[in-house]
């Protein structure tokens, strides 16, 4: 044993002592500096999950509103705004649920708020109720006609363009501009009040367009005519021609 010890060169002995000291310092420092909960559930400090969970709430959630305001809650849920949470319009209200007397939620009343959702925008999905605010009763506050908790229009819109703004604006510059909507779409009176439940009809066959555009049609001479037998008989007209703007390519 002693022989082997003497055989090891002096510099290797010193270096290995140094190495042992470095490793020992690393182990001690690592155990002192690493928080106790590091690695408890994963390669992270478990306590930081608690810190993330401890942040303050700002939005109470609509169930909290229902406890006291059950009349408004029921009214809202029976009408078009049923999917709307109270705090969309009234703002974050956890303070109000904690101390109802001191903190009052905001009540937006001016015209700029409702149009955030309801201003006409080409990118919005079809069927979503939109208005052009410059043309829609200018300077009147929305709540004078619409109850926000029951926003059904107080009077049924008279014009189709009130809801179908995009179609009517396109049609008004097309060669079909003089044709009323009801010529092609049979629309019941109930559609004005319940647009989704009572939908207007749409033409179903080629012969409908043929009433004006076939060669035998008894219509004005300036209307373009086609041969109903030879003109693409396998398709219906609106697969190629957009009826609200037939001159589009």
């Amino acid at each position, binding site marked *: 044993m002693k022989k082997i010890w003497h055989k090891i060169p002096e510099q290797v002995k010193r270096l290995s002592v140094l190495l042992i000291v470095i490793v020992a310092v690393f182990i001690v420092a690592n155990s002192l500096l690493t928080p106790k909960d590091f690695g408890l559930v*994963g390669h*992270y400090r478990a306590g*930081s999950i608690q810190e*993330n*969970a401890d942040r303050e709430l700002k*939005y109470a959630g609509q169930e909290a509103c229902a406890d006291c305001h059950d009349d408004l809650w029921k009214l809202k849920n029976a009408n078009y705004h049923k*999917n709307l949470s109270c705090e969309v319009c009234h703002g*974050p209200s956890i303070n109000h649920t904690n101390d109802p007397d001191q903190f009052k939620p905001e009540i937006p009343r001016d015209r700029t708020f409702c149009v955030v959702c309801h201003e006409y925008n080409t990118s919005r999905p079809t069927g*979503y109720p939109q208005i052009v605010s410059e043309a829609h009763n200018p300077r009147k506050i929305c709540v004078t006609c619409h109850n926000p908790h029951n926003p059904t229009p107080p009077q049924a819109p008279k014009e189709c363009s009130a809801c179908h703004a995009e179609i009517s604006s396109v049609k008004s510059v097309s060669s079909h501009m003089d044709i009323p909507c009801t010529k092609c779409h049979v629309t019941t009176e109930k559609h004005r009040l319940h647009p989704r439940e009572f939908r207007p009809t749409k033409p179903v066959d080629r012969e409908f367009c043929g009433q004006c555009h076939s060669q035998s049609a008894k219509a004005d001479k300036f209307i373009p005519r086609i041969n109903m037998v030879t003109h693409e008989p396998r398709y219906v007209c609106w697969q190629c021609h957009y009826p609200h703007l037939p001159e589009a390519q």
Partner: protein
Amino acid sequence: MESNLKVIDKKVERRTFLKKIAILALAPIAFGLLGATDKLKTVKKWMLKNGYVPSNHKWGMGIDINKCIGCGRCAVACKNENNVPKVPFFFRTWVERYRIYENGEVQVESPNGSIDGFSNLSNSNRKLLRSFFVPKICNHCDNPPCVQVCPVGATFIGEDGVILVDSDYCVGCRYCIQACPYGARFLHPETHTAEKCTFCYHRIVQDKVPACVEVCPTQARVFGELTKKSSPLVRFLRMNKIGILKPSLNTEPKVYYANLDVEVK
């Protein structure tokens, strides 16, 4: 041969032989049991103060593009709920508007993260083919690039699948901001630590939905458990045609889009 057998017979008695065999057989089982009870203890032990056990959950979000109206209420609510600076460039969630023109040109914009609203004006003289809004948020990837690159272990994926940031540990090196392929992270201008969507972690541990889901007027956002059949998210995934963002990166996002257009990146 004969002499060898005799030696073995003499040295090992039957009793001692059987004893040793029994000990050898039982030892690994005993060790295994000890280890198992230890593991059970840690699983049972780790929960939050209010009794929320992360390993019992697996959160995700669904977003229906056909329902989004681009009102930006989600971005406003997120800033309110999470104390995000109320200036542009800092968003945990935001809404983008895509406009796709006849010549294949795609315009993407998000004025102040959708909070300022979207204008109908267009600087293209081409015909608009289609247009829609895409809400964006941290995708809470199952295979998160931001966690891989963090040099100090300050960002991590919890047992419930939510990617969180340990702001005490974060050194503000911005490596995770560079790594995120969805641009969902930013450096908080005051604390100088990385910030991101946490699915409103303080809300979901209290059985509340995230603020953006709470205020979405058209229910374009759906939040829930991915592994529980009764969750609204599982129903959303069953009923819709689902896409994810940048599937080629294999990040395995847990934010699922319904009716996603191929142009959305």
